[in-house]
């Protein structure tokens, strides 16, 4: 009797430590491999072993310290119209610092932040067709449905889209989808890098996407044309007022801002296509 008593604490200890270990298994590769090492190879069922492989595989390239392989992972984009792009980059840069930023600054001093956020929600809700069709084209039926639900709910309960009620009430979040991403999903590459005046970084593929987005955005159908542009410009100023400082920081952190922006653009677009 006395002899068995000593096993009880040991047993409890083992259970105590092994149970979290088992649960934590799926979240940590280290745990898994350590455990695998300890066990007799014959005892390991084939299933978890396979899991390790699939977990590590997608990122394998990146983490091996083999630099040539790691380097291959760098996303690149052709830039055959570099002189045009660079000129447009400078144009947009000046446009931002000389016009857009001062206007947005002035606007933000008269307009409280809450109102500016509400305005952004309104425009975002208006642009639902872009995201809806973008999702549909990617056959993301659930996302398309979510967009529809968001539009209906935010337009009613959210009062004309002023509040993102779908997010706060049901945690249905907005997903940025557009035609360019849908094209990317079909395996269409960027083609080459294009910087547009006022619009900024884009690519051949995303420019075609932007043309599609234009026709899906209700603001494009406002008559007369001047009013439509006016609304766009207001949306832009409002958006900028909420992002003052972001561009400055990017520039400050960069060694070569043109390349930094180009790289950030393709990395960000790649992420959106992959999602």
């Amino acid at each position, binding site marked *: 009797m006395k002899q068995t008593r000593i096993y009880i604490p040991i047993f409890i200890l083992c259970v105590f430590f092994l149970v979290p*270990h088992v649960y934590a298994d799926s979240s940590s590769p280290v745990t898994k491999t350590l455990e695998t090492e300890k066990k007799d190879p014959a005892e390991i069922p084939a299933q978890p072993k396979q899991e390790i492989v699939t977990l590590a595989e997608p990122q394998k390239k990146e983490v091996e310290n083999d630099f040539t392989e790691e380097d291959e992972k760098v996303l690149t984009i052709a830039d055959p119209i570099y002189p045009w792009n660079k000129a447009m980059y400078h144009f947009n840069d000046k446009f931002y610092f000389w016009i857009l930023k001062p206007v947005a600054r002035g606007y933000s001093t008269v307009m409280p932040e809450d109102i500016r956020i509400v305005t952004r929600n309104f425009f975002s809700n208006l642009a639902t067709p872009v995201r809806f069709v973008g999702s549909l084209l990617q056959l993301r039926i659930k996302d398309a449905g979510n967009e529809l639900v968001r539009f209906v709910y935010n337009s009613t309960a959210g009062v004309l889209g002023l509040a993102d009620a779908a997010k706060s009430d049901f945690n249905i979040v907005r997903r940025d989808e557009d035609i360019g991403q849908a094209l990317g999903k079909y395996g269409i590459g960027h083609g080459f890098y294009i910087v547009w005046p006022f619009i900024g970084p884009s690519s051949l593929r995303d420019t075609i996407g932007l043309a599609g987005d234009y026709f899906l955005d209700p603001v494009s159908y406002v008559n007369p044309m001047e009013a439509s542009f006016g609304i766009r410009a207001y949306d832009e100023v409002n958006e900028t007022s909420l992002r003052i400082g972001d561009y400055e920081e990017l520039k400050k952190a960069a060694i070569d801002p043109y390349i930094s922006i180009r790289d950030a653009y393709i*990395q960000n677009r790649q992420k959106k296509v992959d999602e």
Partner: protein
Amino acid sequence: MSDAFRKKGARTNIFRRLPMMKRVTGLSLIFLLVFPLYAYAGIPLDTVKGHINQVLDVLRDPALKGEPKKKLKKDKIRTISEKMFDFDELSRRTLGPNWTKFNPGQQKEFTDLYKSILEDAYVDKIVTYTDEKVSYNKEIPLTEKTTEVQTIIVTKKADIPINYRVILKEGAWRVYDVVIEGVSLISNYRSQFKEILMNKPPDGLLDTLRKKVGKA
């Protein structure tokens, strides 16, 4: 069967013959043997979280409010970033294959310059934060030694996904890459450095960085 039983009995006897203190030591040993098996689960996330919380504490410290205390605040954040980031790994991965073109002295200087550029760029940004909340989503293993900790900074204006890639070295998880909205920090700098190194030797790049640091 009986053989195994006898062994078991023998072990218990030895165990029981030991004085109490030694028995406690024995138990601790078992504890230590079992513990490392799961010690890493959740650790990457907790490490990142711990460091971010330290930064948030500095930002919210009422004693550090106001303009004159700004420098002190920045210094404190720099101290935390030293612990949080593995700047060697970060530099090595940023340069990629070009790393070997640098001699050890140049590698050291590159790491130092790169570090101050990053700190200058991001510490200024961080000290402007006040009411931001950070939610820690999950950790995704990349390889045996690397993991991605996914977080979201929730601000009034927007939710910004920030993922920290951490590597296990000498028992500690430290950050070697930060991915914001899908944009990897080291990849972004790699593309810039690559362009410079196509036309200039390593010292040319170092010179560019020296100028940048001097200016900042």
